[in-house]
């Protein structure tokens, strides 16, 4: 039952926010920290036991396939651990960063976003997945517009329109599946789906993947991402890039692998992932706005993750998951760090950050480490991810994949080009004007450096993650195993 707390705690605190706010105005910023610490500890405690066998948490007394239930497997608990780790770092950051507007609303929405994300990765029920996904989406629409400035509101509206159409498609997909099988339990659907071959089923697959693909930012569904990530407050950009799109990827993967498991579609989505990667990196290359550049880079990374997962071997999915972890950590660091760089220099254009590395050494160092990690340079965690991806892709010894890997590397070179350009800008360009920068508060540098420690530590010793990746990949890919775990 412990797994329920992972959702209950942030959700409860989010709704209790007005109450706390009534007691003291200053308490609001501490609640997300408390919730995330709690979630992190719970996830770490749960992880070893769910590695052995998945735990099913029944809500409302009806056993699966009837009632709603949570599936605390290695993948779900692992991802919730990642969510709470990044969430914790971002909430500590936000404590010092969010100084304007209705702060209690910010923190309440933030908690909602995280509980939506946690719920989505833990649930075993398709409609429940949709509900949590919607909680995540709606709170992120609102948070993007939190500052109420022109860009924020505009991007929130665009995000909302696309997100809602996506959600609509998901709902249609769910309706079709329910109409065919009369159940919403993912394991139950997965059992029946092998016996049926109908065009409607394919339609459901397309609608579900497209719908979740909007949040996962697969090309061409990702137009909201550069706008939203670049216009949101930096703490929100970090959580959107680090966590929200990962939930989308999780949902796509769950639908593709566990529910449907149609091999033909993998290749199709794999090619879409490749297109996402290329387009994201090329667009990022021609950006001058640093946050927009990072946002497009997220698009590219999502493409890489999707590409890796759709290799659809345990190695490939594991590699994709490692890349997912690495991207969550690195991009969070980058957005958090750049948040202060942008705040201090007063502009988001790259050229305004010339030589800022001397003024803000800690933040810039962290950004450089994260950028190196994203490019996939050792000894940072991104290298392990890329190495595994290439290994998984080439393992089949097919020429097709060798060519695809060539394209992946083409994108990586473009990615490297703009990240190295960023490094040069931060450190090796002469500042145009002398500004006395204020120090970055500890509330920002501590979480950033903590994440950097993770990036380096996992980069030096990624083997610590290997068993989790392996069982998480099995959790996704092994359809029969999943059905057995859930339905007994």
């Amino acid at each position, binding site marked *: 039952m412990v797994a329920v707390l992972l959702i209950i705690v942030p959700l409860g605190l989010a709704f209790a926010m007005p109450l706390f706010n009534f007691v003291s105005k200053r308490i609001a910023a501490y609640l997300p920290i408390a919730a995330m610490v709690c979630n992190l500890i719970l996830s770490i405690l749960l992880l070893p036991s769910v590695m052995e066998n998945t735990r099913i948490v029944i809500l409302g007394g009806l056993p699966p396939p009837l009632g709603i239930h949570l599936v605390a497997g290695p993948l779900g608990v692992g991802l919730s651990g990642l969510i709470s780790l990044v969430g914790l770092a971002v909430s500590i950051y936000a404590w010092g960063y969010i100084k304007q507007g209705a702060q209690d609303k910010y923190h309440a929405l933030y908690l909602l976003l995280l509980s939506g994300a946690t719920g989505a990765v833990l649930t075993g029920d398709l409609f429940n997945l949709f509900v949590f996904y919607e909680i995540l989406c709606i709170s992120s629409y609102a948070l993007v517009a939190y500052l109420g400035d022109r860009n924020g509101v505009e991007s929130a509206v665009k995000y909302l329109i696309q997100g809602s159409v996506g959600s609509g498609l998901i709902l249609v997909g769910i309706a079709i599946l329910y109409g065919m099988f009369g159940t919403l339990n993912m394991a139950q659907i997965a059992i029946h789906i092998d016996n049926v071959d109908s065009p409607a089923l394919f339609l459901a697959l397309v609608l579900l993947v497209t719908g979740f693909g909007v949040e996962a930012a697969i090309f061409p569904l990702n137009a909201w991402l550069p706008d939203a990530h670049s216009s949101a407050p930096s703490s929100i950009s970090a959580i959107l890039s680090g966590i929200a799109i990962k939930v989308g990827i999780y949902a796509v993967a769950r639908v593709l692998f566990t529910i449907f498991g149609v091999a033909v579609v993998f290749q199709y989505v794999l090619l879409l992932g490749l297109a996402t990667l290329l387009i994201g990196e090329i667009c990022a290359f021609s950006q001058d706005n640093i946050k927009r550049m990072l946002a497009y880079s997220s698009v590219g990374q999502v493409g890489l993750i999707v590409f890796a997962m759709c290799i659809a071997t345990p190695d490939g999915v594991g590699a994709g998951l490692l890349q997912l972890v690495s991207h969550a950590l690195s991009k969070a660091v980058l957005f958090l760090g750049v948040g202060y760089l942008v705040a201090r220099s007063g502009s988001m254009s790259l050229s305004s950050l010339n030589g800022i590395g001397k003024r803000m050494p800690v933040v810039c160092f962290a950004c450089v480490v994260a950028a190196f990690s994203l490019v996939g340079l050792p000894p940072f965690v991104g290298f392990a991810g890329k190495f595994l991806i290439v290994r998984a892709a080439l393992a089949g010894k097919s020429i097709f994949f060798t060519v695809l890997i060539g394209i992946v590397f083409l994108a990586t070179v473009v990615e490297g080009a703009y990240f190295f350009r960023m490094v040069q800008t931060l450190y*090796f360009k002469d500042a145009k004007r002398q500004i006395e920068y204020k120090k970055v508060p500890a509330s920002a540098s501590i979480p950033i450096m903590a994440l950097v420690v993770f990036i380096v530590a996992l980069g030096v010793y990624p083997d610590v993650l290997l068993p989790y990746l392996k069982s998480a990949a099995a959790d996704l890919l092994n359809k029969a195993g999943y059905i057995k775990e859930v339905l007994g």
Partner: protein
Amino acid sequence: MTLGLLLIVAFGGALLVYLPGKISSKLRDVWAVLVALAVLLGTATFYGKSVHDALSYQFLGLPLVLRTNDLSWFFAIAISGVGSFSIIFSLSYIKNRERTDFYYSLMLLINASMLGIVFAGDLLSFYVFWEIMSWATFLLISYNRGNALPAGMKYIVMSMTGSAAYLVAALSLYAKYSTLTFSAISTQITTASPGFTSFILILGFMVFGIKNALVPFHTWLPDAHSEAPSPFSAVLSGILIKMGTYGFILFLYVLVGFHQFSQLAWKAVSLQSVLCWLGAITIVIPTFIALMQDDAKRLLAWHSIGQIGYIILGIAYGTSLGVAGGAFHVLNHATFKALLFLCVGAVEYRTGGVRDLNSLGGLMRRMPITFIGALIGAFGIIGMPLTNGFVSKWLIYKTLILNQDPFLAFAALLGTWGTLLSFYKFLHNIFLGQLPEKYKDLKKAPTSMQIPILLYSGIIVLFGVLPGIPLKIIAGFVTSFGLTPLNVNLWGIVSETGTLNTINLSMAVVSAFFAAWVVFAFSRRSVPTTAQDTYAAGASIPRDKYQYSVEFYNPLYRMMGRYLRDVVDEFYGWLARVTQMTGEIVRRLYTGDARDYVLYIVLIVAASIGLKIWWPT
């Protein structure tokens, strides 16, 4: 001392530079020199040893192996030697610059990572060290700012392309053999199909060709070498690009084996001859481009490419003499090119960053030690007898002549002529001729700069007179490649077709010098006059206007300049612009209109369904 410990010292020493740097810059300097020397000593202790250590630490479930043998040690000692000399040189060179902690830390880090490369016993640890070297190099190239930034970008983009090719090659091998250790791959690859081996080797050529600046992958080098801080240029040109050579030797001789390599051919064109000809092209064209450079460091940089051509030519030729010549040239080029860069660095340091050959001159009397260093370095690179460059070039020529390959031999010879011409210009325009007015009060190079210059000069002459010292190790690993063993003694190589004996050579050269000295001693002494006397018959003219070293080979420029454009570089530049333009076009997809985005969603659903209908499988 184990290899692991040595690497820990090297890497730890590099990262910990910041600690003493926080206390005082003196302490930091001492620390940096101590670490570099400790690494040099530590490397030296592995002389003649053959170690194969499987580490208990695994990366992604793959075992990592460190190993050393004659080949590794040969490169390792060159790395730590060049590295520590450059650190000593940096003491005064870098003193008044900013971010000195950063500089020393990266110098030591690059050193450590290069050691890691040559001590790596499997493709994964090789790659890890290779990448650390690449990004650290990028940071250090960019250190000088200004023009150094595009140079750094060019370097890192090409380097990443190479790394990508490496990763594909390594993991294709892994997919086939489920192992990444050199020893295991080399035994299993003998059964591989020629297509697969060619695939691996061509990828390898790309990786190592880029690092090695083999034409057509050379374009990063002139920019990077000339814009980096000079002591680092010495490392870069002296040894860092030789990591590519090490990679060539590794892939050709250790992993695949020469026999298998020489069999690979597509119709009449064998892979080996392609590589040989690439080597020859690399000798000729860059050497003549170098001739036209006015920037001292750029001139040296283009020559680095030219000399790499000799190395590749020797190694690709695959006879034991050729490989020995190529490998020996690695060491020799490391010494004389590092020496030349340090000399330019010293000049640059004293003149306040001037390295334009048109505005220097006559520094011989002001900086005598530097001049002697530059002279010996130039002798070395030209291949004058009594310098080590002679021996290695002799071995390479000999290989080509013995195997009756007149075209390649002619190319190699042509390169030497170009080298001779351009180093005459180099020496003359910096050290000989008139001293410009503004440099009248120039001081000698500081001691910390003179020490490495003298050490390098000593080594060049020592290995020129006693080539047997390094050749003994080279003969060791050449034999281990399965080539005909070489008969080496202290004075040279004994072979049936003609013995290299430096005693006779020494005598000949010394007597020639004596004869020249006699002629000079008995002829009329030259009378130095000022520029006014020569040009203006005593009338007053603007000072420093009539420096006769300006545009030294002017007629030659006009004659050849048109043909010696760097076409490859222009092509890469075009490629970069195309990428940029593609980005500009592609990002118009994101029109900013929310309705278009909805349209994309509808379209992708429609497209997916359409694909399913028309493409039922």
